[in-house]
């Protein structure tokens, strides 16, 4: 039996990669709100790291809405939604979001990670199988794992592999096809319309996480369902409310019967304190802004993305194929990835490096999100810096 004093030795982190790169980019302490720049250790860094796609996290109208909600409801209702944490505001935002996404019903969780982890143990079990894109977000993988169902990962966005595997699933009770819409580290989009067609052909249930699609793709920012024109989606939809929606929380949308069931049987919802009033109010205001201003914000996002991508390509960087605002630099192994991130950080640019196990071995990525908040002069500064970088 292990001695108590040895227990904590198992949790000592190997900092070898960080030491070799002489840089630890994780847990930077931010001393400001999200503007074009953020302040770290008193210095300004251009924010190309956050998921603040539409630049609304620090918007005055959003902040005002959050303050008004605090004035009405206080900081928290200090209860789970099933108890006394389900406010009129909660109910209103849920309905408004569900309408915006275009589905029958929805329920807000404290985060999308909790939504994805709370969903699968309710809908899947030992007699079931989930085919999951091998690049899908960790929350989907962990959610599926925790359900105890059989897992068969499929090659990334590979419909032939998916169909070949679907043909082998006839012995299972329920078959799920699980994917992200916009892949968070690559910025590419799943062939979701085709995935839904395969779901129908093989009686599978499609589950999509639209965290990087909602408020980003589709003519009105409606996300993957609007982007693909899927008006009668019969599957299950999840999304983060902490990215383009610039607040926090997660949502699951779908058929009313399922959502009602989750409200009573999804532990991650039932036993978690409700999303707090300011976040709900913030989402409410952001949805109004998206409705009025998405076209303009989207134009700015796309324009920033094109300029930054061009500067990176001119400097010889190898980028993933992305038609979303995500720019992803292929940066090789973990040490190279951190070293490149350090170079950008030294030039006062904050980015997000992904190393194993977040991505596959030697397939490190530096993610840049070109948000709508970036002004022309900041973009010019960024592109100037990037063009002078030696790789």
């Amino acid at each position, binding site marked *: 039996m292990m001695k108590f004093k040895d227990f904590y030795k198992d949790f000592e982190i190997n900092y070898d990669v960080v030491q070799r790169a002489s840089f630890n980019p994780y847990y930077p302490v931010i001393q400001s709100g999200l503007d074009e720049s953020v302040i770290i250790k008193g210095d300004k860094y251009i924010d190309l790291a956050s998921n603040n796609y539409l630049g609304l996290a620090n918007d005055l109208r959003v902040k005002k809405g959050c303050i008004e909600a605090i004035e009405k409801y206080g900081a928290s209702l200090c209860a789970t939604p099933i108890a006394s944490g389900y406010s009129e505001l909660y109910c209103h935002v849920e309905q408004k979001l569900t309408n915006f996404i275009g589905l029958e019903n929805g329920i807000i969780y404290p985060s999308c990670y909790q939504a994805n982890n709370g969903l699968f143990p309710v809908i899947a079990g030992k007699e079931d199988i989930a085919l999951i894109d091998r690049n899908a977000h960790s929350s989907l*993988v962990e959610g599926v794992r925790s359900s105890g169902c059989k897992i*068969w990962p499929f*090659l990334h966005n590979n419909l032939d592999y998916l169909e070949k595997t679907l043909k082998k699933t006839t012995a299972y009770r329920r078959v799920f096809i699980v994917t992200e819409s916009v892949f968070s580290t690559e910025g590419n989009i799943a062939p979701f319309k085709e995935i839904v067609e395969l779901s129908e052909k093989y009686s599978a249930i499609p589950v999509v996480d639209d965290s990087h699609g909602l408020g980003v793709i589709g003519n009105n920012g409606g996300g993957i369902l609007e982007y693909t024109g899927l008006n009668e989606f019969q599957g299950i939809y999840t999304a983060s409310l902490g990215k383009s929606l610039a607040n926090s929380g997660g949502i699951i949308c779908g058929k009313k019967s399922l959502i009602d069931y989750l409200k009573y049987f999804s532990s991650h919802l039932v036993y978690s304190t409700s999303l707090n009033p300011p976040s709900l109010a913030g989402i409410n205001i952001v949805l109004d802004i998206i409705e009025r201003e998405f076209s303009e914000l989207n134009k700015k996002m796309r324009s920033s993305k094109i300029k930054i991508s061009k500067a990176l390509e001119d400097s010889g960087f190898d980028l993933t194929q992305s038609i979303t605002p995500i720019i992803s630099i292929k940066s090789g192994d973990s040490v190279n990835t951190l070293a490149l991130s350090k170079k950008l950080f030294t030039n006062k640019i904050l980015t997000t490096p992904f190393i*194993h196990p977040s991505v*596959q*071995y*030697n397939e490190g990525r530096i993610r840049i999100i070109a948000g709508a908040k970036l002004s022309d002069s900041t973009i010019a500064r960024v592109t100037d810096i990037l063009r002078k970088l030696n790789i």
Partner: protein
Amino acid sequence: MRLNVIKIKKMELEKKVINMIKESLEYNDEINMNDNLVNKLGADSLDMLMLINTLEDSFSIRIEDEDLKDLKTVSDVIEELKVKLGKNKNE
């Protein structure tokens, strides 16, 4: 003559498994028997799951979770497969 048949069958099995590893790991370079699945071929837990599912389905066998930790190289996978196939034959 019989030795040759066994040798050909062994080679066919190795070739088949290597092709499955290449597909599951999307690995396009040459694969050798002693290659480590994780360190050399870059397999992570999902890749391994994809590979094990493919092997189980193609050879109608069951590889238990506890056996996974022993499958470090391409050769380990093939040896495990031979044991499982042998058992199936005897059953």
